[in-house]
C-alpha cells in the first residue's frame, strides 16, 4: 500500500522584526508548496477563541500542498510587545515581514487569509501591496467603526452587568478622542489604534486580486443584505469575488470548542480552484 508522504510537524519559530521577535507557526506541506498563505488573526478574545479552528484549517491546507504561516501580531499572543503598544501600522509592517519570510521559505508569493478584524487588516495590507495577494476572508469585519462600537460595548456591558453606571459607546469614543487609554475585556486599547480602526471601511477597499469570502451564520441568513451590497460594489470595481455562504456558528465568539467542518472543507476546496485572473 502506498502512503501519502507525511506532512512535517508544525514548526514554531520567531521572526525578527524592528520591534522585537514575532512568534509564528509554520505548517509546511510534505512536498513543494503549490500555494502559500499567511494567516491574520482576529482581535482580542476572538483571537484566543479561534486558535483551534485556525490550527485545524492550517493543517488541512498543508495536507493540500499549501504552506501556511500563522503569525502573532506585535503585542498579541506570544510575540514581543504589549497590546497597549500595538498600532495598526506596526501590524501592517508585521504582515510584510512574515509574508517575505513565507515567500522565501515556500518559493511562492503568499496570499493572505484573515478572520474578522484580521480580514480587514489583510484587506488594508493588500491595497498597499505592489503585487496584491489573493485573499481568503473568513467573516470579515467590514466596518471598523461598527466593530469599534461593539468592542467598546464590551466595557459598557461589563459595567452594566456589575450594575455600575455604564458609559455608552459615545462617551467611550469621546474618552479615546481625548487621548485616554481604555481597558476593555483585559485589553488595553490605545487611542491611536482605536482611531485607525475607526476609519476603515471595506466598501472602499476593493482588492485588485481574487477574493474568496466565507460568510457564516448558524441560521439561514449567512449572506446579509449588507454583505451582498458590498460584494456587488467590489465586483463593479473589478474584483473577482467568490462568495461562500455556510451554515456554521460564530466559532470566534464561542467559549466552547466548536468544529466547523463545512468551513474547513469549503476553504480547502477554494484553494484547489486555480487562482483566477
Amino acid at each position: 500500500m502506498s502512503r501519502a508522504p507525511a506532512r512535517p510537524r508544525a514548526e514554531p519559530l520567531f521572526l525578527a522584526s524592528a520591534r522585537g521577535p514575532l512568534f509564528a507557526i509554520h505548517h509546511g506541506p510534505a512536498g513543494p508548496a503549490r500555494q502559500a498563505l499567511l494567516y491574520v488573526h482576529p482581535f482580542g478574545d476572538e483571537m484566543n477563541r479561534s486558535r483551534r479552528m485556525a490550527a485545524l484549517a492550517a493543517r488541512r491546507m498543508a495536507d493540500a500542498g499549501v504552506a501556511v504561516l500563522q503569525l502573532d501580531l506585535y503585542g498579541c499572543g506570544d510575540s514581543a510587545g504589549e497590546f497597549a503598544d500595538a498600532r495598526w501600522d506596526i501590524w501592517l509592517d508585521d504582515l510584510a515581514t512574515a509574508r517575505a519570510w513565507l515567500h522565501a521559505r515556500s518559493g511562492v508569493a503568499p496570499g493572505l487569509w484573515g478572520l474578522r478584524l484580521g480580514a480587514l487588516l489583510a484587506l488594508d495590507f493588500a491595497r498597499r501591496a505592489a503585487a496584491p495577494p489573493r485573499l481568503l476572508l473568513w467573516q470579515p469585519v467590514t466596518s471598523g467603526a461598527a466593530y469599534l462600537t461593539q468592542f467598546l460595548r464590551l466595557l459598557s456591558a461589563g459595567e452594566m452587568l456589575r450594575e455600575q453606571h455604564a458609559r455608552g459607546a459615545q462617551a467611550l469614543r469621546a474618552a479615546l478622542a481625548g487621548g485616554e487609554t481604555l481597558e476593555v475585556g483585559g485589553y488595553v486599547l490605545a487611542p491611536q489604534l482605536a482611531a485607525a480602526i475607526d476609519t476603515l471601511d471595506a466598501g472602499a477597499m476593493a482588492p485588485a486580486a481574487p477574493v474568496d469570502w466565507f460568510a457564516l451564520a448558524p441560521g439561514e441568513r449567512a449572506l446579509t443584505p449588507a454583505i451582498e451590497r458590498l460584494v456587488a460594489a467590489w465586483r463593479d470595481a473589478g474584483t473577482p469575488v467568490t462568495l461562500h455562504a455556510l451554515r456554521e456558528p460564530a466559532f470566534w465568539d464561542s467559549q466552547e470548542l466548536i468544529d466547523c467542518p463545512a468551513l474547513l472543507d469549503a476553504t480547502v476546496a477554494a484553494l484547489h480552484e486555480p487562482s483566477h485572473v
Partner: protein
Amino acid sequence: MYLDETRQILTDTLFLGARGAALDADSPLLGALPELDSMAVVTLLAAFEEHFGFMVDDDEISASTFETLGSLAAFVAAKAAAMPGR
C-alpha cells in the same frame, strides 16, 4: 412571536442547544446562564441588530433587560415596534 425569535437567537448565539429550547418567558437569564457574560451580551445585541435591523444604544439597556427571556423579548419587541416604517 418575538419570544420565539429571541429564544432562537439567544440559543444560537450562546450555543445553548436543548437548554435554550426549554426556556420560557419566566426563565431567568442573568445569573442563571453561565454563558451570559459581557462578551455574550455584546454578541447577542449585535445578533439582534443584524437580524431585526434596529440599533441599540447602550443607555437603553440595563441588567433588568436580561433578567428573564420575557424581559429580553419585550425589549426586542419594543425596539422592533419603534423602527421607522413599522
